[in-house]
């Protein structure tokens, strides 16, 4: 069985980068989300090309943090993006 890839965002989602941070706007819900730098890194990887495990592995390689903590944070970020309609 193939692991599910995350993303890409639905059409129309706007993403604006300010420094390391990304802000999102959903024209369908008229909602906005301001992502911190960590969540912004997750957003850059939810492009429909990576599975959850691949995203975690990529961030574990970059961040000096407990892989389980990163896994939990990535899962939570993706859940929040999904519930807000950004994915």
């Amino acid at each position, binding site marked *: 069985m193939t692991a599910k890839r995350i993303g890409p965002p639905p059409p129309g989602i*706007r993403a*604006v980068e*300010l*420094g*390391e*941070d990304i*802000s999102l*706007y959903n*024209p369908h819900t*008229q909602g*906005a989300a*301001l992502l911190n730098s960590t969540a912004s890194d997750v957003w850059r990887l939810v492009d429909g090309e990576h599975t959850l495990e691949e995203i975690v592995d990529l961030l574990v390689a970059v961040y000096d943090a407990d892989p389980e903590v990163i896994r939990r944070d990535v899962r939570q970020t993706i859940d929040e993006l999904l519930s807000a309609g950004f994915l």
Partner: protein
Amino acid sequence: MTPSSQTPFAELPPAGTAAATQTDAVDLHLLGQPFRVHGDTAVVGEVRRLLDVFVVSPAQPADPPVVTVRRLADGYAVTATGQPDAGGHAYNAVDATTLVLAILNAAALSGAGCLAVHAGVVARNGRAVAFPAESGQGKSTLTAACLRAGLDYVSDEALCLDWRDARVLPYPRPLELSGWSRAAVGLPAGPCDRLVTAEGLGAKPARSPLVLDHLVLLARHADADAATVTLEPVPRQQGAAALLVRSFNHWRDPERAFDLAHEVAARTRVWRLRLGDPGRAATLLSTLLPGAVS
């Protein structure tokens, strides 16, 4: 703005005097919208004085929104076009004037053809600094202190950004200052206005064009009189967030508001000001703008 029965700010005649039986009218242009205030001559005269920079000749559309001040036996009634009559509630002259300005302010911001953000704004030489904040965070006091420090007045109420190009549109309504605020900026003791014009603080309204250079997020010291005031850079995204969260009317065009907030944040410097003594804070903010006296 809310009327208060404890505001000894003007020598207006009480209802029932001969002067109060006359009527007058003043035409105003607020944030691109026409208004007329009509009625009791003393209250209308005070409105004209306080809103002098917005007064226009009466060549406006035939039927602008009108705020009417009627004299009653025991005070003044204030009614506005499209709003239910409050049942002839009688205000004293000071509170009636304050209420008229509150009605005009709410209507102007509601219909403004700009992104209006709750903020204090000051300027020098065409460059502006804005501090978005909710009521009670000290923006009017800081604005007044900045005027005392020699900066020009843009608004103590709203940063108004043109929807197309983010130009800052001046909205120099009278500053609303509490007793503590008046003392903090060194206004003379004794009976004095709660509503104060820029001229009353020894300053002048800023002229267009105005470009926003700095967004300052206010953070309170535990000690309101603390001598130490600090200014530190913060990520620009926090500036965009403040513009959106403090906006009065982003709902009119949410997507454009989102874009505009980020465009502005991308080209301004964003700071956090730990606010203690307002005079010291104003001196610090003054150094951000060109033409500062060292």
